[in-house]
C-alpha cells in the first residue's frame, strides 16, 4: 500500500501541488454570487460563485476588503484570488483577493481571451521557463531612465550584489510608442548580447499605463528572447500577460531586482563557512596523518642504517672477489701469452733455418712441398739461414 495517506498529509500534498501552479495562485473568475448572507461576526465574507451548472466556495477575509466592491446574492462579479483546499473540511475554495461588480469590461474580456489563446499555444508553459543564472555577470535593464523603478533597481542591486554590471536601455514604458520601444529594446539586448538576464520593469500606474504589457506583440517578443527575461511591472496586484510569459516574475521593480541577485552578505557568510571547513578538514587530515608519518619516520630510522651496513658489507665482499678473480685472470692470460710466444718462436722460419731446415722454391717463387711439383733437370733454389743454394734436380726418389 504505497499510496496510503493520512487525510492531513493528502490535503497538505494537494495544497502543495496547488502552490506550485502559478495560475491557480492568481486567477480571475466571473460568475454570480450565491449563498451570501452578509459579513460574519469576524467581518469575513463567505459565499459561493456559480455559473449555469457549477459553483465554488469563496472566502473573502476582512483585511482584503479595501478597494473591492460590495455585492449581494445574485450579483454578477469578477473575482481575483487563489485556489486552496480548506483542510478542516477538505473543501476546495477560492481565497478572494478582490471583487469587482458588473463583470468584466470589454478590454478585460479581450485580455482574458488573448491570455487563454496564448496559454493554449503554450507561451505560458512552466516547462519552457528558463533558469535564471545564480551569479549573473551582466544584467540588461529595460526601463525608463528617469523612473523610480530604475532608481529602485540600482539601489537594491548596489546593496545586494555590486559585482554585477548593469546595462540600461532607456525605454518608453508607457504611452503610444511603448510597445514598439519595448520590443525594440528586447531585440537590441538579444542581438548585441547585452546581458545574462533582461530585467523588464516599470513602477505602478493606472490600468491604462500598464496596458502595453498585455499586448500580444510584447508577449511574443518576451517569448522569443534568447536571454531569460524577468519582469517587475507595477505593484503586487498588477498582473500583465508579460508577467505570465516571463521566465520569472518579480512583484515590483524592487522585488524583481531581489530575485535576480544573490545577497552579498549571504555570499560572505558562505565563503567564511567554506574557509572554516577547509581549515577544519586540513587540521583533521594532519591530526589523522601525522601519527602515521611519525610511525614511518621511526621505521625508516630503524631500517635504513641496518640496510646501508649490509650493503656496504656486500660491496666489500664483491670488491674482494673481483680483485681475486681479476688477478687470477691476469696471471692466466700472461701464462697463455708466454706459451703462444714460445710456439711462435718455434715456427719462425729464421729460427727453423738455424736448426738445419731449408725452404725450396722453383723459378716461379713457389714453395715446393712435394716431388710431384718438380721435373727432372728443373732448377730450384734452396733457402738457408745464411744464403741461397742454386741447384738442379738430378733424380726423384719417391719414399
Amino acid at each position, binding site marked *: 500500500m504505497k499510496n496510503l495517506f493520512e487525510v492531513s498529509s493528502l490535503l497538505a500534498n494537494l495544497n502543495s501541488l496547488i502552490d506550485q501552479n502559478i495560475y491557480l495562485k492568481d486567477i480571475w473568475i466571473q460568475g454570480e454570487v450565491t449563498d451570501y448572507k452578509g459579513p460574519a461576526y469576524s467581518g469575513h465574507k463567505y459565499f459561493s460563485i456559480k455559473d449555469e451548472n457549477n459553483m465554488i466556495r469563496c472566502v473573502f477575509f476582512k483585511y482584503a476588503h479595501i478597494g473591492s466592491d460590495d455585492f449581494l446574492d445574485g450579483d454578477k462579479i469578477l473575482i481575483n484570488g487563489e485556489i486552496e483546499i480548506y483542510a478542516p473540511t477538505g473543501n476546495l475554495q477560492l481565497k478572494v483577493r478582490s471583487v469587482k461588480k458588473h463583470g468584466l469590461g470589454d478590454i478585460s474580456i479581450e485580455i482574458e481571451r488573448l491570455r487563454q489563446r496564448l496559454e493554449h499555444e503554450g507561451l505560458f508553459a512552466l516547462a519552457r521557463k528558463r533558469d535564471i543564472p545564480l551569479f549573473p555577470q551582466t544584467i540588461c535593464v529595460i526601463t525608463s531612465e528617469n523612473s523610480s523603478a530604475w532608481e529602485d533597481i540600482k539601489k537594491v542591486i548596489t546593496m545586494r550584489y555590486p559585482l554585477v554590471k548593469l*546595462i*540600461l536601455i532607456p525605454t518608453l514604458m508607457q504611452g503610444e510608442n511603448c510597445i514598439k520601444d519595448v520590443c525594440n529594446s528586447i531585440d537590441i539586448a538579444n542581438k548585441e548580447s547585452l546581458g545574462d538576464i533582461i530585467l523588464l520593469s516599470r513602477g505602478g500606474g493606472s490600468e491604462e499605463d500598464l496596458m502595453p504589457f498585455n499586448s500580444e506583440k510584447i508577449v511574443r517578443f518576451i517569448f522569443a528572447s534568447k536571454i531569460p527575461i524577468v519582469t517587475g511591472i507595477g505593484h503586487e496586484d498588477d498582473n500583465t500577460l508579460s508577467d505570465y510569459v516571463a521566465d520569472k516574475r518579480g512583484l515590483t521593480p524592487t522585488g524583481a531586482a531581489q530575485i535576480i541577485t544573490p545577497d552579498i552578505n549571504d555570499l560572505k557568510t558562505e565563503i567564511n563557512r567554506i574557509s572554516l571547513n577547509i581549515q577544519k578538514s586540513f587540521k583533521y587530515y594532519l591530526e589523522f596523518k601525522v601519527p602515521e608519518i611519525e610511525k614511518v619516520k621511526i621505521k625508516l630510522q630503524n631500517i635504513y642504517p641496518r640496510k646501508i651496513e649490509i650493503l656496504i658489507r656486500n660491496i666489500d665482499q664483491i670488491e674482494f672477489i673481483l680483485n681475486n678473480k681479476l688477478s687470477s685472470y691476469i696471471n692466466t692470460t700472461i701464462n697463455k701469452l708466454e706459451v703462444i710466444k714460445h710456439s711462435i718462436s718455434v715456427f719462425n722460419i729464421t729460427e727453423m733455418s738455424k736448426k738445419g731446415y731449408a725452404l725450396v722454391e722453383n723459378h716461379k717463387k713457389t714453395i715446393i712441398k712435394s716431388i710431384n711439383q718438380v721435373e727432372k733437370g728443373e732448377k730450384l733454389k734452396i733457402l738457408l739461414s745464411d744464403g741461397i743454394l742454386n741447384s738442379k734436380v738430378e733424380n726423384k726418389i719417391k719414399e
Partner: protein
Amino acid sequence: MSENRSEANKDFEDFEGNLLFLQKIVNELENQDSSLSETIQLYEKGQLLVKQCNKALEKAQLIITKYEKI
C-alpha cells in the same frame, strides 16, 4: 569606470566557478583519501580562492552603463 573598479569586477568574473571549486576542495579534503602533497596543494588553493573571493566581495562596486539607441 575606474581602473580599480574594473579590476575588482575582473576578480569576480568567475565567482560561480570559484565557489563550485571551493566546495569541491572542501569535499575532497573531507574525503581524507588524498595524499599529503595533494592535500597541502588543495589547502593552499582553497585559501587562495577564499582570499580572492573575499577581496572581490569587499572591493566590488556596481558598474552602470547606458546603451544609446541610434
